[in-house]
C-alpha cells in the first residue's frame, strides 16, 4: 500500500500537464471573449469544413503510404540477422535525431521549383515538376517525418512472433505466402495499429510541414489552430473549439480501430 505514494509525483504531473490543459481547452471552447457560456465557437467552424476534410484526407493518405512503405521494411528488417537489425534500426532512427524543422527545410530545398529534384530531372532531360506548395509536398513531408513511427512498432511486434508458430504453420502445410497471410500478418496487426496511431495523430495536427512545404494555400487544422493563438486571427476560444473537435474525432477513430483490432491486441499479450 505504501507503494501508492510513489505514484504521487506522476499524478501531480498528469494533473498539471494533461488534465489541466484539457480542462482549459474545454472551458475556452465553450466561452466567448467576454467569458460567457456559448456554442458560437462551434457554430463558426462551419466555415472551416474544407480545412478539416483536407487535414484528415492528407493524414489518411500519409498514414496509408507509411503502412505501404513501412510494413515491408519492418518485415524485411525482422528477417535480418541480429547485428544487421541493430545497424538498420539505427539508420532508420538517425534522421529523427536531427531537428524536425531542419529536416523539413531540407525537403523544401529538394522540392523547390529550382530545387534538387527539378535540377536532377532537367539533367536527365525530363520535364520539371511543380511539387512544392502542393498537397503532394505535404504528404511527402509527413511520410518522411513519420515513417519511423510506423516501422518501429510493426518491427517490434513481428520480431517477437514466436518462431515455432511459423514452423507450426509450415509443418501444417503452409507455404511462405500462406504463412505470412495466415500467421505473420494477423499477429503483426497490433503493431500496425499502434503505427497508425503514432503516424495519424501527429499528421492530422501538424502545422510546420504544411506551412513550409504546402505554402499558404493548403491550410491544415494545425495551421488553423496556430493562427487562432499566435496569428493575426487571434481567437483562442475558436482555436480551443477546433482543437477539441479534432481531439474528439481522433479519439473516435482510435476507438473504432481498437475495437476492430481487439483480437490482435490479445495476440500480443500472449
Amino acid at each position, binding site marked *: 500500500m505504501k507503494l501508492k505514494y510513489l505514484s504521487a509525483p506522476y499524478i501531480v504531473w498528469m494533473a498539471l500537464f494533461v488534465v489541466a490543459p484539457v480542462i482549459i481547452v474545454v472551458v475556452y471552447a465553450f466561452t466567448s471573449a467576454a467569458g460567457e457560456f456559448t456554442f458560437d465557437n462551434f457554430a463558426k467552424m462551419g466555415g472551416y469544413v474544407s480545412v478539416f476534410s483536407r487535414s484528415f484526407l492528407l493524414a489518411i493518405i500519409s498514414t496509408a503510404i507509411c503502412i505501404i512503405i513501412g510494413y515491408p521494411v519492418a518485415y524485411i528488417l525482422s528477417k535480418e540477422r541480429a547485428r544487421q537489425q541493430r545497424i538498420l534500426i539505427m539508420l532508420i532512427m538517425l534522421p529523427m535525431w536531427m531537428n524536425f524543422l531542419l529536416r523539413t527545410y531540407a525537403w523544401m530545398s529538394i522540392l523547390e521549383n529550382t530545387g534538387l529534384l527539378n535540377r536532377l530531372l532537367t539533367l536527365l532531360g525530363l520535364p520539371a515538376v511543380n511539387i512544392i506548395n502542393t498537397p503532394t509536398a505535404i504528404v511527402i513531408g509527413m511520410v518522411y517525418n513519420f515513417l519511423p513511427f510506423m516501422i518501429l512498432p510493426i518491427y517490434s511486434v513481428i520480431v517477437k512472433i514466436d518462431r515455432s508458430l511459423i514452423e*507450426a504453420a509450415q*509443418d*501444417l502445410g503452409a507455404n511462405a505466402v500462406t504463412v505470412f497471410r495466415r500467421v505473420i500478418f494477423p499477429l503483426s496487426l497490433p503493431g500496425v495499429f499502434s503505427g497508425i496511431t503514432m503516424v495519424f495523430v501527429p499528421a492530422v495536427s501538424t502545422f510546420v510541414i504544411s506551412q513550409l512545404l504546402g505554402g499558404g494555400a493548403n491550410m491544415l487544422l494545425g495551421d488553423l489552430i496556430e493562427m487562432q493563438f499566435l496569428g493575426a486571427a487571434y481567437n483562442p476560444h475558436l482555436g480551443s473549439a477546433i482543437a477539441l473537435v479534432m481531439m474528439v474525432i481522433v479519439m473516435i477513430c482510435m476507438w473504432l480501430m481498437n475495437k476492430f483490432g481487439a483480437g490482435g491486441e490479445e495476440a500480443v*499479450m500472449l
Partner: protein
Amino acid sequence: MAKELIRLRDCTMVFDDDVVLNKINLSIKDNEFLTLLGPSGCGKTTTLRIIGGFVKPTSGDVFFNGVRINDVPPHKRTVNTVFQKYALFPHLDVYENIAFGLRINRHEGRRLSKDEIHSRVMEMLEIVSLKGFEHRDVTSLSGGQQQRVAIARALVNRPKVLLLDEPLGALDLRLRKDMQIELKRIQEATGITFVYVTHDQEEALSMSDTVVVMDGGVIQQIGTPEDIYNEPVNAFVADFIGESNIVDGIMIEDGVVEIFGKKFACLDAGFAPNEPVDVVIRPEDVDIVDIKDGMLTGTVTNVTFKGVHYDVIVDFKGFKWLIQTTDYCPVNSRIGIKIDPDGIHVMHKSQYSGMFGDYSSYSAEYEEISDAELEPEETVSEDKLYEA
C-alpha cells in the same frame, strides 16, 4: 515385419563448428512408436527437426518411403509435429487451430468442403476429449488442454508420421502420466508412426516400441525397452536408463566375470579372454543375505525409505552401491549380497567407462576402486558363486 518408412543415413549436423549429430543411422518402421531418448544437447531434437524438414543435415541423407527428401520443405512433407511449447496460433480459437491444416491444404488431391472440415475437426475434438471447447480461446486453456489441441491440430491432417518434441515436458506429473496413456492409445487407434523425443527414461520405456538412446550426437543404442533396460551396451545407457551400479570387471571366460576379485556367474558371452569390462548390476537385482552367505560383504552407509522399497547405499571397499530392497537393514550393519547370473550385465569398455554408476560421494575412494587394486575378499568362498 512392418515396412521401413523413414531412414536417416549418415546424417551429420554441424552448427558453428559444433557437431550436434555425428553420422546418425536410423530406420523408422511404419506404425512404430519410436522414442529418441537422451539428455539435453544429445541431438534428439535435431534429429526430429531433420525429419520434420526444419533443418537440413550438413551431410547425409533422409529417405521417406525410399525417396530422398533432404530438399523437400516442411510444408510438403506428410509429417506433422507436436511442438514442445505447443505453438498454438494465439489469434485463432481451438476450432480454427485444428482446422488450420485442413483449410490450407489439398487432401487427396482436392480442397475439403466446409462440412468435411467440420466433421473432421469435431471427430478430432472427440478423440482428444475436448468436445465443447471448439470456440474457446487457446490462451484460456490449461497446459494439458493446449497439449491436446496441439495433438489434434497435427493428427487431423492424417499424417504418415507424427513427430512429438517433448510434448509432455511442461505438464505436471499426474497429467503427464494420463497423457502418456492417452498418447499410446491414440497411436494404437490411428496406426500413425510416432517419433517421440524425451529425456524422461520412464516415459520412453513405458510408451515405446523402440527406444533410441542418444548422447553427444551419437546413437548409443537402439532396441526395445526391455533390451535397453536389461542389456545396456555401455555405461552411459546403463546409467541413463534407470539406476545402475557400474563396476569394473574382467571377463574371465564366457559366463564368468570377475568383480572385486571375485568370480561371478553371468549369462554374457563373446568377450575376449580376460577382457576388462564394465559390469552393470541393477539395484533391484541384488539380494541382501546373511553375511556368511554373501558373495560380497559391505557396510550399509545410508537407508532411505521410498514407499515400496528402501534405497540402501552399501559400501564395498569404498565403492558405494545402490540396492533396492524391501528388507530393512540399519545403517552401519554389515550385510552380504547375492546376485543371480541374470542380474549381471557385462558391457564392453567405452568412452563412458568410469563416469557413472558409483553412488559414492567421495571421488577419492572411487579413484582407488577404479584402479582395481583390490585386496582379496576374505568372507566369500569360490563355490558360492555357481550356486545361483
